[in-house]
């Protein structure tokens, strides 16, 4: 029972002096201290997840059934999953590329400097706490009466809504999603970029390599797994995001989270029972696959981040 990571300059005091019997008893007592938290997590994380996934597996009378899962073959549901997938894929790829560009621009600045601290805070707000508020910012900007819409129409004669009010439909989610995807990329990818070592660049130059050669043969290959991992995280983030879409697309259920909203609020959507549970199950499967891929790629990426 010795700590494996005792920092330098400290002395382990007293540990190991107690009688073994006392330690066992104390240990089980201490184990009891873990109970409240575990009960809490079981009640409010594990139970809801199991209920959500399981509710699709049981009929109203409590018997096990796979009948509800026929809903996943419904053309409407398939289309929703497809919409969610391409929206997430598109915003993940664009968000990852733009975010990586920002990370490159921030490379070399002190992580505790003014610029990095401010950018980190701004990214944190947009990526993690925006939700509904980002939708309002979008409406105020490129909504029907948005400032940018009016400016483009009155000053430049461009009507961005010539083809209809796309901002309240699926295409309108793209700019809104990018508005939180790019900052999330900066947050998740920046540590990997900052871990690139100056000594590698020096070694490359000493051996006669060029700056472009460094990026081509060292920088990009080293960063590739981290980039992919961050992009997967962005995909999962977009796929599970609800708030922005709910506030923006007030009508219709073009993506899976909005379809779950409809299923929760109206009992007989498409004449199917337990649709919310089935959709939740489908979402968990997609997110689960993506997060497993993330874990695998991240393990590969971690090799260079020591």
């Amino acid at each position, binding site marked *: 029972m010795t700590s494996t990571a*005792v920092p330098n300059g400290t002395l382990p005091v007293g540990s190991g002096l107690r009688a073994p019997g006392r330690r066992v008893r104390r240990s089980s007592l201490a184990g009891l201290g873990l109970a409240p938290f575990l009960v809490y997590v079981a009640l409010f*994380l594990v139970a809801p997840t199991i209920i959500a996934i399981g509710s699709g597996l049981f009929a109203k009378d409590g018997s096990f059934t796979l009948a509800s899962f026929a809903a996943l073959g419904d053309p409407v549901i398939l289309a929703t999953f497809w919409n969610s997938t391409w929206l997430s894929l598109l915003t993940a790829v664009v968000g990852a590329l733009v975010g990586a560009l*920002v990370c490159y621009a921030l490379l070399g600045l002190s992580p505790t400097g003014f610029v990095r601290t401010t950018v980190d*805070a701004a990214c944190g707000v947009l990526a993690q*706490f*925006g939700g509904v*508020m980002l939708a309002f910012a979008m409406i105020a900007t490129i909504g029907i009466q948005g400032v940018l819409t009016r400016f483009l129409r009155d000053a430049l004669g461009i009507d961005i809504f010539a083809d209809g009010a796309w901002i309240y439909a699926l295409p309108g989610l793209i700019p809104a999603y990018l508005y939180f995807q*790019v900052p999330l990329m900066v947050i998740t990818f920046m540590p990997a970029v900052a871990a690139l070592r100056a000594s590698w660049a020096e070694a490359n130059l000493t051996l006669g390599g060029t700056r472009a050669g460094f990026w081509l043969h060292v920088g990009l290959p080293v960063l590739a797994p981290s980039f992919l991992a961050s992009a997967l995280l962005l995909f999962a983030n977009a796929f*599970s995001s609800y*708030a922005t879409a709910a506030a923006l697309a007030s009508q219709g259920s073009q993506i899976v989270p909005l379809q779950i909203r409809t299923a929760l609020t109206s009992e007989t959507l498409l004449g199917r029972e337990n649709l919310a549970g089935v959709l939740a199950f489908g979402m968990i499967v997609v997110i689960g696959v993506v997060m497993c891929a993330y874990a695998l790629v991240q393990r590969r990426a971690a090799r260079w981040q020591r």
Partner: protein
Amino acid sequence: MSRAAGDIGPAPVTRWIIGALVGAIFAIPLVSTLLYTLQDADGALTLDHWISLFSAANPSVIKPLTAGLGNSLVLAVVTVVIVIVLLAPTMILVNLRFPGMKAAFEFIALLPISIPAIVVVVGLTPIYLQIGRTLGTGAWTLAFAYGVTVLPFAYRSIQASIDAVDLRTLTEASRSLGANWATVFITVLVPNLRSGLLAASLISIAVVLGEFTIASLLNRQVLQTALVVVGKIDPYASAIFTLLALTFCFLLLLALGFAARGRSRKVRS
């Protein structure tokens, strides 16, 4: 530890071009929102929307917002209590007595990142029916769900500060000087971990103030659901509150960032 990465970093011109371009694009929605609240129907600048919102001339707009904000603040406080009273002691216990369980604990703590709130809410509906029967339907009960939502954020902040101090030595030293566990906890561990606890609390507040999914689908009134309701009556009011809330969260995170920056400087010097 600042890395002299001048060799691989971009040239200052490149840096500023990228920064200015992306910065400008990302500023557009926020600046537009501000302009939106400052314009009348003809596009002339005016403070009318701000004045009318705060002059209480329009109770149908301001009432849901203040009620929602009030509920959100109560929820923020209760969530912070859950983090400080439930999560932090458990983390200290795991790090001190069950270091072998650290990986498993981290897995649990980061789990909410992988489980979308929209999925959790499907399963929370029956649970909150039960809670409604036993504890009532007070706004604060939602904090149980929010405690899980903030778990990954709070965990990271607290773990970072646990990793920065030698808990074991501190505890053993105080114990051998005769302190009991309560004394160790309150007078030794909490002060040493205060930066992590503060960070966890501030991030939890930001998350709770911005949470919409769970509140909306459980039919609770919080700041974000109020914004959506009010947005349909008076979009200017929603825009103003959006700006205020985003600014508040930004300042919270900025304060956190600069506090951490000050600490790392102190450590280095």
